[in-house]
């Protein structure tokens, strides 16, 4: 039997973080962005059954990248957390902040105590009464939480995707333009990546709905929205049109 040799805590944490980052970088990306009537989620995900974007509660949704079984486990725990709290207290007492805290503590504990950290990155978003009161929390594998505004990109080539979003994101965009921006940003993952409606998983938290605000968009609707944004671009809107052409 060999003696276990000493590894410094710094090195241990660094190894774990590198391991988690590598795992996450292997997957495709997801973007979350605010538009005029809500929050839009776009994932590069051709599967109709294995979702990266899901409903948590009336005004809350979840998006994730990384290892499917790990984030699916967290998603189910989140649904249980929300439903138990909403049943025990009131539906209004279920908040994204509460869930983000629970996720952060869970991810943090797993990162420090387990040999293998979770290879996931999550977004928990809650729709407010208006865009200013929307909440978007981004959680990483080690349990850190960031409170985001406007847009978030995570997953494989998150840096390129985020750069594209930063360049063209505007507040209060209509859904069609926000979707096209999200899709174009995701296409930056690879040099020659082109995403059709069938390869996308798209959902919204829509302020115009009542009760449960989460809704998945079917492929036909995604296609129609992308065409709408395309035709709006070709017929005028000189300011944004010029900006978008430069992006290509």
């Amino acid at each position, binding site marked *: 039997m060999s003696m276990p040799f000493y590894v410094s805590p710094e090195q241990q944490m660094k190894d774990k973080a590198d391991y988690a980052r590598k795992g996450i970088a292997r997957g495709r990306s997801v973007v979350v962005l605010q538009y005029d009537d809500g929050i839009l989620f776009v994932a590069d995900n051709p599967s109709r*059954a294995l*979702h990266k974007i*899901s*409903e*948590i509660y009336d005004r809350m949704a979840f998006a994730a990248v990384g290892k499917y079984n790990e984030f699916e*486990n*967290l998603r*189910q*725990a*989140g*649904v*249980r*957390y929300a*439903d*138990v*709290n*909403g*049943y*025990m207290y009131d539906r209004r007492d279920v908040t994204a902040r509460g869930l983000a*805290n*629970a*996720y952060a*503590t*869970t991810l943090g*504990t797993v990162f420090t105590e387990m040999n293998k950290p979770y290879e996931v990155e999550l977004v928990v978003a809650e729709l407010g009464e208006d865009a200013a009161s929307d909440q978007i929390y981004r959680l990483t594998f080690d349990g850190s939480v960031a409170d985001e505004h406007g847009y978030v990109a995570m997953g494989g080539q998150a840096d390129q995707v985020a750069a594209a979003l930063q360049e063209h994101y505007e507040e209060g965009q209509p859904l069609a333009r926000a979707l096209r921006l999200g899709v174009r940003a995701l296409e930056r993952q690879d040099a020659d990546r082109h995403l059709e409606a069938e390869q996308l998983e798209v959902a919204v938290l829509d302020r115009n709905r009542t009760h*449960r605000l989460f809704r998945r968009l079917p492929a036909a609707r995604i296609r129609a929205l992308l065409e709408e944004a395309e035709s709006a671009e070709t017929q005028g809107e000189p300011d944004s049109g010029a900006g978008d052409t430069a992006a290509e």
Partner: protein
Amino acid sequence: MTSQGSAPGRLPGAFMSQGPPSFTEFLSSYSPGLLPGTRELPAGVSAGDQIPHGTTIVAITFPGGVVMAGDRRATAGNVIAQRDIEKVYRADEYSAVAIAGTAGIGLEVVRLFQVELEHYEKMEGRTLSLEGKANRLATMVRGNLGMALQGLVVVPLFAGYDEDRDKGRIFSYDPAGGRYEEHDFYSIGSGSVFAKGALKKLFRADLAEEDAAIASLQALYDAADDDSATGGPDLARRIFPVVAVVTSDGYRRLPDEEVGGLAERVVEGRMQSPGGPSAPLL
């Protein structure tokens, strides 16, 4: 919240474990005290009469959907406990649930049933079949059997739109959790005898949505006419029955103004003939 052997603030272990997609099953292991029907009652005591009771509910199918309506009265013995209680609820997008019997437990069962359906949908990414929903409700009613035997009886009525068959369907229950599919129309609660009699004469297979709503109001009027525990339309306070419609477009509760307008027409008709519309003899 009870945490089960994990770091404070962390999601409890039970949340992270592989479990059933049923909310009730989950609660029964995580926090059974939250479930109706799990409480111990003192033996040999029956206090059923002192606790508010909900009364009459009717449901009628029409081509492409189903209408469910309930009066607004709750009674505790001879006292009217509540004038504007609501007993008809949205169960999920394509179904409605209503309760008769002990109001407190009934409302708790409805709330649990609503979460149960939504929870399954979120966990599994699909909705339950209409029969699946009806069976879950049966299990919940059965869970209350102990209390029912001590006088706290709750009986729901469940109706929904069946996407596979493109029609509305109605399910009734007994206190032991027996589930029965009803055809055309049904009624539960203290005034149900009179409401069913009225519906028998009013029902036709080709009712339009609005006609079905009017028939449900007529039936509730007849129930209120002969049953003291059922409330009729209250024109002075503008309190009218809750009327819900479930079709392929989903659940829709008719707005109060719309129900008020229909109820006024029903009351107006009764001014001429107090017994309501008369059916041909042959």
